[in-house]
């Protein structure tokens, strides 16, 4: 990995957001991933999501583990602090960071190896704690950096580049997250930016852990015939189930949809996610029903896409820990140290 700066070029048509920043201000260094990599499309969607949310770059913390996906935080929002940590350990580091400063916006970028193998435990526990962060899995079913071994998300029968078929059942992050109480679960496709951007925005504003599993084909090792994580396969089998519009706080909801097919979920900050159900059978606010329906569709060989479940009433980590509103890292020392008189008094109990 090298560090390639993007040339500064300002297009006159680039519109500034409310902070006066353009899309370019949310970009990062030049990607060094393979040309056509799905991850780069996700990076572009992340850039757009932050831009459209008017997030001050320095109030963003972007974290990752190790792997192709985990390189990508370098490629977006160069004005944000980044932490490229250790393989599978990003959830813990993000948890600690969030504990210390609850005012930043946290995005964790991970991959299927990072999250579903070496970091499976940490991801599950971050979900259980409902850490306030957007957690993106860039899921390609294989290990790219070590040249294409199967990952834990590879489907049974999916073939490697050399033609070898995977025999072990996959771990599905969506079903897993639903089963352990995730409060925001989505699946998208790197090739569908229109679907992905609103999901990312809603996930960033969700008060709690937002899991977004993005199928992101590996053009070098897993985009061939026989792979179930290729562009062609995903396009053919995707089942758009719930599309989402993100409606910022205090903005009128102007999009017109037929009555009965939409559900509005009001987020913590007052903004709204409007969910459009493609199937009348599907209720994205009912965990049990959602899990049952998704299980059924997946059995039928379909890949359900969209914002599949959201529960804004879940107890976020800080709410559970009852921490003060101000960031712990910024509390004045005087409010933390009980002082000499208290120490003297306390020691009477140790006599």
């Amino acid at each position, binding site marked *: *990995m*090298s*560090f390639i700066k993007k040339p500064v070029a300002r297009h006159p048509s680039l519109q500034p957001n409310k902070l006066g920043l353009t899309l370019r201000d949310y970009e990062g260094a030049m990607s060094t991933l393979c040309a056509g990599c799905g991850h780069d499309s996700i990076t572009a969607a992340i850039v757009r999501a932050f831009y459209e949310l008017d997030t001050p*770059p*320095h*109030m963003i*913390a972007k*974290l990752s583990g190790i792997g192709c996906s985990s390189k990508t935080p*370098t490629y977006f929002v*160069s*004005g*944000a*602090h*980044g*932490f*490229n*940590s*250790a393989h599978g*350990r990003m*959830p*813990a*580091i*993000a*948890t*600690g*960071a*969030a*504990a*210390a*400063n609850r*005012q*930043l916006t946290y995005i964790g970028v991970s991959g299927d190896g990072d999250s579903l193998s070496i970091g499976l*435990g*940490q991801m*599950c*526990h971050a979900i259980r704690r409902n850490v306030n962060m957007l957690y993106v899995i860039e899921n390609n079913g294989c290990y790219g950096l070590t040249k294409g071994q199967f990952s834990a998300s590879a489907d049974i029968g999916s073939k490697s580049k050399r033609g070898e078929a995977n025999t072990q059942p996959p771990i599905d992050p969506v079903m897993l997250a639903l089963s352990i109480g995730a409060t925001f679960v989505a699946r998208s496709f790197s090739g569908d930016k229109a679907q992905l951007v609103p999901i990312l925005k809603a996930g960033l504003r969700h008060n709690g852990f937002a899991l977004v599993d993005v199928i992101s084909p590996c053009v070098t090792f897993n985009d061939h015939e026989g792979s179930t994580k290729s562009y062609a396969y995903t396009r053919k089998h995707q089942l758009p189930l719930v599309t989402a519009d993100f409606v910022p706080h205090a903005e009128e909801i102007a999009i017109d949809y037929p009555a009965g097919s939409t559900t509005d979920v009001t987020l913590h900050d007052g903004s709204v996610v409007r969910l459009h159900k493609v199937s009348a059978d599907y209720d994205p606010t009912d965990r049990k029903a959602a899990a049952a329906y998704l299980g059924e569709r997946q059995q039928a060989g379909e890949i359900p896409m969209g914002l599949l479940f959201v529960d804004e009433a879940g107890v976020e980590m*800080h709410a559970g*820990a*009852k*921490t*003060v*509103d101000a*960031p*712990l*890292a*910024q*509390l004045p*020392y005087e*409010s*933390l*140290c*009980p*002082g*000499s008189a*208290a*120490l003297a008094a*306390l*020691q009477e109990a*140790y*006599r």
Partner: protein
Amino acid sequence: MQATLDSEAAVPQPSVDRTNDFALKLANANGTGSASANSLLMQAIFRMGIPVSGKNLFPSNIQGLPTWYEIRVNKDGHTARTSEYDLMVAMNAETYARDVREVCPGGWLLYDSTWPLHPALHRPDVTFLGVPYAKLCNEAFSQARERTLMKNIAYAGTLAALLDIDMDVIAGMLKEKFSRKASLMESNAKAIRLGYEYAKAHFECPLPIRLRKMDATKNSILIDGNTATALGCLYAGATVAAWYPITPSTSVMDAFKALCEKYRTDKDTGKRRYCIVQAEDELAAVGMVIGAAWNGARAFTSTSGPGISLMNELVGLAYYAEIPVVIVDVQRVGPSTGMPTRTQQGDVLLCAYASHGDTKHLVLFPANPEECFYFAVKAFDLAERFQTPVFMLSDLDIGMNDWVVPRLKWDDAYRPDRGRVLTREELEKMPKFHRYSPDDELGVAARTLPGVHEKGAFFTRGSGHNKLGGYTEIPDEYQEVVDRLARKHAAARNFVPKAVVERREGASFGVIAVGGCDLAVREALARLESRGLRGDYLRVRAFPFGPEVEAFLASHDVVVVVEQNRDAQLLSLLTLETPVPKEKLRSVRAYGGFPLQASQVVQGIEAHLRGRPSSVRPAHADSAGHAREALGDEHANNGQARP
């Protein structure tokens, strides 16, 4: 049956005044409520102003297995562990035979005489004192659980009579303890009286081993190291703590939580100025601490050896990315699961060089709860000044036993040393910020915190980076950074707690020890002096070693290194990190799991200095009986020290 004694064990002589100078051992079954009776006794002696120690030798078990408590009283302050028991309180039938064997000749044994004693268990050289506790308690109390619990309180009453414990002190303690539970107070007071009055009526009280009020503890407190550590973390201003439960460190976080609830909870809103996360494992615990520290909070984790093993991976990340974290290691016996409820100093090398690649850490070695408090505060200051992980190595003996230590003091003028952190204003004025350059005379570069300013943004990484913070695979750029890290570590030697040096006029050798060895070593040196062997003493309190350690090594021809692990880890570290020639060093080690005894140190040193290696034998058999503590030095034969 004769107790197995070696020449070193001091056989009590009737003519010697044993007032305020004796040891007792109490044998119980785990989970019967004996702990409260035993700590009541120890606390009463403390309140009588007499130097005392209590060692809880407990099994890794919740209920039923044998457990022992040892109390040593010593007017001169020699309160290291001793296995020369003058009085045994044998309340556990399962270990009875072993307990009888362990009493010193001329000593006493207190037992429950509700049932007749098997003649085979008798010893002619020990005075047996029988009190029918079960019978007395069955008559006095109606509830089954109460009958069991009160037997313990009753033997405390007997000991009060036998040892002449001030009954007013005991009455006062019960009053404090049960001020809100009148019924409990009444039954406890009743049980105390049962045991006390029976002793007064049947035995000659007090025994020659007895207590007499002193004035030696009025400026002291009775506290365990884990509580003191937690207090230090509280006073240091730690706001984020993450941990995974593990014996013997769990009570660090229990205490931290209790203290935070008391001092860091907003009275009106109930909101907390702290966040404690019980992690899914130690990998995550240290990860959370790293994340929190990266984000500007003072953060720590507490664990024991197995946890350190798991944390190794991310400790390297914190070291290389230069993130200040505090890791408290309350050492227990390893390797692997080892003996979780036994003490050892087996993590010295593990912590000094934790993680893969070239790593070196700052390590603090408190010797007692008092130092746990001050060193915990120091650990945060050092971590932030040097932007690196700091280990504090306590052990089970220090961490979980109550110690008499001077009252803790706090200077209200103290403010945390947050090290070099750039403010928003400073960043505004800077043309450009680079994370690892320029560095100061300590090798430390300024860091920035997320959320402060866009100009301070950088990419923290555990992958190869240059001094600007950018990714690199270029040899010179990589080396420049890791060489600076080595410089930083070396610079810290003048900032860590200095070694404590005690010199004796005409000393012919030096002794170096670490942590919880301190009391036993000082007692041993006093004993050796009375036999004409004078030694200087240095207690290492931190790694890297300060210049005073090198000076001490240089000024002695023979230096005995005393420590509680098999492989002479401190000795190894000294040979690796100072210019001392190996030939100068001798090793004395005890690592069976019980706290070090002066007799073990005396034997070990004498074996080296008098050239009598054949006399080196394990000290007095321990309560584990078959599990004798190995000691001395098998290498003494050829005069070579470990390693």
